[in-house]
């Protein structure tokens, strides 16, 4: 599928994320599903839409075929497919995720913390320093956006058109995607 309308692309990403969240729910991964729904379908969509108000809505059409890109994608896909053969069997009790510290967490969370959600126990207590790192990464993201967007914009505004009132925008309508 090829979409030049960036708004449609953003919506497709949101739908994809929501479907993944549903998939995680089916796999009983409530925490991951909640995160995927909140981050993928919620926040990143709204941020992409906010960015789209600063850019053109339609991608520039580029002629011809990019055979190099196709080659890279095919090779990477083949390598990933080959690597997948080495993955442990899905849900098998002796795959690495179940065999190492996971078993310790499952056995001790009740005695150590007295809380039923093992994901919260692992994230906030057993692996607390990892989570602190994540919190700092999020803070750093805010700093980066702040550093990029806090100053006044330059005089030249490439490709930015004036926003028209919604009623008129609907009446005139911009050109459809190629």
């Amino acid at each position, binding site marked *: 599928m090829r979409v030049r309308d960036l708004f449609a692309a953003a919506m497709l990403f949101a739908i994809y994320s929501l479907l993944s969240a549903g998939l995680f729910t089916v796999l009983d991964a409530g925490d991951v599903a909640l995160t995927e729904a909140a981050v993928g379908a919620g926040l990143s969509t709204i*941020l992409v839409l906010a960015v789209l108000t*600063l850019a053109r809505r339609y991608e520039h059409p580029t002629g011809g075929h990019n055979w190099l890109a196709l080659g890279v994608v095919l090779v990477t896909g083949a390598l990933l497919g080959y690597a997948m053969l080495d993955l442990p069997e899905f849900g098998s009790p002796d795959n690495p995720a179940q065999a190492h510290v996971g078993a310790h967490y499952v056995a001790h969370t009740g005695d150590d913390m007295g*809380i039923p*959600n093992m994901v919260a126990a692992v994230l906030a207590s057993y692996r*607390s*320093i990892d989570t602190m790192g994540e919190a700092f990464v999020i803070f750093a993201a805010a700093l980066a956006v702040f550093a990029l967007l806090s100053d006044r914009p330059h005089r030249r505004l490439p490709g930015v058109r004036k926003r028209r009132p919604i009623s008129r925008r609907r009446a005139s309508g911009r050109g459809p995607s190629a």
Partner: protein
Amino acid sequence: MKNNGILRVLARFLIPLIFLVGLYIQFHGEYSPGGGFQAGLVFSAGWILYVLIYGLERGLRAVPLKAMYLLSAAGVLMYALTGLAGVLLGGNYLEFTQFLANPQSAQQAGIIIVELGVGLTVAMVAMLIFTLFVRRRRQWDDALDEKDDRA
């Protein structure tokens, strides 16, 4: 969009509900799926919906930009200082067991404080990034208006 009756009525109903769900995910995270990260995002979603309906000015009157700067830093500091408190009480960094006499309650207290820090940072960062983008669009519109006026 504040003149659209359907949106306004729906928002008035939804926004408090979203905040409530956010608080639930934050403080019930030990018992059900969720935690600070998801709660912060849900909380920021409520505020972003408010901004979409009522405009950035009213949104910033509820949560000023300065508060976002301060609270997003306060969240991570809260996390780091909780870790330091563990050291001062004679344990390892981010070890919660010394906080209270009962090690289980101590762990739970530590988890709640740390998750609160994460939630605060995530909510404020999400709101801050959204605000910065919206404000940039506003600045461009103003610059274009100026250009029109001069022409």
